[in-house]
């Protein structure tokens, strides 16, 4: 570490996040390395180090001899200011070397509000933000992650996208890059060859055409690039890389514990949920694998808490055996087990008691909508009875804080649906009065609402988002409907949700907005410290675009979408059928009850879904 950097670190907040040197970080001898990769996370260290995807891909890439993958995070404002003032480029934590000199920068794009930070990190690395302005083969700037399901808004900045799960795909891209580097290929030649790797989308090989009304007319592949790019999955999770020796941060991060991923995908099919479609088909780890992985991860980290992770952990087959097996190991060692993402419908007394034996934390349920009618529309297959039963079990078990999450602005929502949220919360309160075993401590029920964001590759991808004023009207309506002082109501600001709606269903033209926002000082936009609605609206206007076109417009049934080029397995026809079912208020059973033919099973070569 240079004296200059040391001097800077004595002045910034939480300097330990900029030093590296944590236990289990991977350092390789440069003499054995012929390809250097920076895994770039466009948010803070505390957020990025909590990301299981980062830990998995960091480990998986470093398994490859000759390739050294290091980490790089977005600096907080004070650190950025110091780096810029000292003209120090963005560096990788392990070696301290400038990432701008690496062979590849691999960005993790989990959510749209991180986009401006990608540009900011490229700039801090001393690189032009636009792909076209980086003529050399290296550094290759590529990206993957959930929000790449619609890569178009970032198409101007990213050389290639990797779609789906990256354990194998990232290495295939990096091996090709290594070959290209040693054989002296140019960037265009490499990108053309990379486009033949299944799961790779090279935006420069596609030409969007627009109709006069701004919608897409066509999306043309060039130079023999594939018509559509299919996401990649790991078919057999147990045989894939698993991060049992993950990096243990020396400073506190958001999820400071062992995160045990039990399965991928979700059998449910809630119609608003992008992850529910994006991660299909459902695949699981075996219980034996998980018990062994959990022990290794706990022993190698020294963590005293482990959490099970998946989109819907209640749906993990063998959860009771897994929970029992984990508790048998955890209890004598005073390790606590937490089970988030439990559904309200199959929240069993037994399971809760088992978890409760170690530590009792707050409970959160997400009914998403207040009325049964609207829950049927969104296919959130939780009944009021399920929810109240779960609450009863919780209150009988001594819990006294409960959070309930809802969305406002869901398709077909009426004022009655909004008022039903308040009624549901009151019923939860009555359930507490009736069944609480510990009334003296009182109860705290928190209702939270956020503004619904229609997402690509969901049945609601055609839908409009409600306007900000309308959302706020419904917030007031709900606020006035809640009478009890034991119920607290929090609502999320709608402004971020509007921008999220613009970006998530944006096209290549929205790239200009992202660049303008960044040039005007935008970064770390998921933080209220930095997000500026005015800056985004000004940039949208300056680009000659209309936020309403992207966010508040019902799309035609036959409209071509910018993200149609990406094939996630689930077909557009299936999504359209699900949308029609939503309007009819018809629920779709979960995948285990009946296969509805979403198409995702075509991604599997050897097995069926959920085996």
């Amino acid at each position, binding site marked *: *570490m240079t004296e200059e950097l040391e001097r800077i670190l004595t002045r910034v907040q939480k300097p330990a996040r900029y*030093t590296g*040197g944590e236990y289990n970080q991977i350092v390789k001898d440069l003499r054995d390395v012929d390809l250097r990769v920076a895994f770039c996370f466009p948010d803070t260290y505390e957020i990025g180090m909590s990301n299981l995807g980062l830990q998995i891909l960091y480990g998986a890439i470093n398994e490859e001899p000759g390739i050294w993958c290091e980490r790089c995070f977005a600096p907080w404002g004070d650190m950025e200011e110091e780096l810029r003032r000292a003209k120090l480029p963005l560096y990788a934590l392990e070696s301290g070397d400038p990432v701008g000199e690496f062979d590849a920068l691999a960005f993790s794009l989990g959510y749209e509000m991180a986009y401006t930070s990608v540009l900011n990190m490229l700039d801090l690395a001393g690189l032009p933000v636009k792909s076209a302005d980086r003529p050399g083969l290296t550094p290759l700037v590529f990206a993957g992650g959930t929000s790449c399901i619609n890569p178009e808004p970032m198409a101007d900045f990213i050389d290639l996208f990797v779609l789906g799960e990256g354990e194998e795909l990232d290495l295939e891209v990096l091996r090709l890059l290594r070959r290209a580097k040693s054989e002296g290929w140019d960037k265009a030649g490499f990108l053309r060859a990379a486009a033949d790797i299944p799961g790779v989308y090279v935006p420069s090989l596609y030409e969007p055409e627009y109709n006069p009304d701004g919608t897409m007319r066509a999306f043309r592949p060039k130079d023999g690039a594939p018509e559509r790019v299919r996401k990649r999955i790991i078919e057999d999770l147990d045989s894939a890389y698993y991060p049992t020796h993950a990096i243990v941060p020396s*400073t506190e991060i958001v999820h400071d514990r062992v995160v045990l991923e039990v399965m991928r995908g979700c059998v449910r099919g809630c119609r608003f949920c992008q992850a529910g479609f994006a991660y299909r088909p459902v695949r699981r780890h075996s219980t034996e694998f998980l018990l062994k992985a959990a022990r290794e991860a706990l022993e190698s980290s020294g963590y005293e808490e482990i959490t099970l992770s998946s989109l819907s952990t209640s749906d993990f087959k063998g959860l009771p055996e897994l929970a029992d097996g984990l508790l048998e190991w955890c209890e004598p060692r005073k390790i606590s087990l937490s089970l988030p993402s439990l559904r309200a419908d199959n929240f069993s007394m037994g399971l809760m008691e088992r978890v409760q034996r170690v530590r009792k934390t707050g409970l959160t349920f997400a009914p998403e909508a207040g009325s049964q009618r609207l829950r049927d529309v969104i296919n959130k297959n939780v009944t009021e009875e399920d929810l109240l039963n779960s609450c009863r079990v919780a209150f009988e078990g001594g819990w006294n804080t409960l959070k309930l999450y809802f969305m406002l602005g869901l398709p077909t929502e009426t004022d009655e649906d909004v008022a039903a949220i308040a009624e549901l919360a009151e019923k939860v309160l009555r359930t507490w009065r009736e069944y609480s075993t510990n009334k003296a401590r009182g109860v705290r029920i928190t209702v939270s609402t956020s503004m619904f964001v229609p997402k690509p590759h969901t049945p609601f991808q055609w839908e409009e988002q409600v306007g900000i004023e309308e959302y706020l009207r419904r917030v007031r309506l709900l606020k006035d409907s809640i009478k009890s002082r034991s119920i607290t109501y929090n609502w999320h600001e709608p402004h971020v949700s509007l921008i999220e709606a613009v970006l998530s269903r944006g096209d290549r033209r929205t790239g200009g907005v992202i660049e303008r926002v960044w040039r005007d000082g935008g970064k770390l936009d998921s933080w209220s410290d930095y997000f500026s609605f005015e800056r985004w609206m000004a940039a949208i206007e300056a680009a000659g675009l209309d936020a309403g076109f992207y966010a508040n417009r019902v799309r035609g049934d036959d409209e071509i979408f910018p993200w149609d080029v990406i094939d996630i397995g689930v077909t557009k026809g299936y999504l359209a059928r699900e949308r029609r079912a939503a309007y009819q208020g018809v629920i779709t059973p979960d995948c285990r009850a009946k296969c509805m033919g979403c198409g995702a099973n075509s991604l599997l070569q050897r097995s069926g879904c959920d085996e």
Partner: protein
Amino acid sequence: MNRIRFKKEGRAKFISHLDLMRTMQRVFIRAGVGIKHTEGFNPHPYMNFAMPLSVGTESLCELMDFELTGECLPESVPGRLNAVMPEGITVTECYDAKRKFKDIKWLDIEAILFYYDKVVDPAEISALLSGNELIMEKRTKRSSARVDVRPLIGSASASPLDAGRILLKARLACGDPALSPAQLISAIGQNAPELAPDFTSARRIEVFDMDMNLFR
């Protein structure tokens, strides 16, 4: 009671005291070295540090007490802990704690003083710190007072290191009242602004009792 002595250097100097406690807790678990937990509703490992170290200061002489519960022999502790430490923290000894931390009265420190655009004679710093008195504005959480901190300086001498850098060695009181390396540097600046360094990198070297015997 068992005690370890450890170094905290390099990148690890930016780990805060709170984060160090968390890190140590995990290090013992990773090493499989069982230590006693506190009683009560929410038991946590019992660990007691001699003197919290400020972020950005290195040390060769940190001390931490705990109690071994398993069959682990004290002499095997440094090796086992070091095998699972983050970079920069090294346990040098583990032994039975015989004396209380409150017996620590003096601390030897070394500080490198950086001057970017002025030339300073180390002798002037030595002279300033070795005078009859050294009055400084000492801030506590609640108040601020002008005090003579000269009695808190056992000895101090500055010597040239290389261009723009001076090595300051000092013995500072670390009981109550105490003088931290940062306060020592502040005292220089308050009394002689022309001697104030642009940046200081400090390191704890050794701890002593009131009779200047090594504290262990």
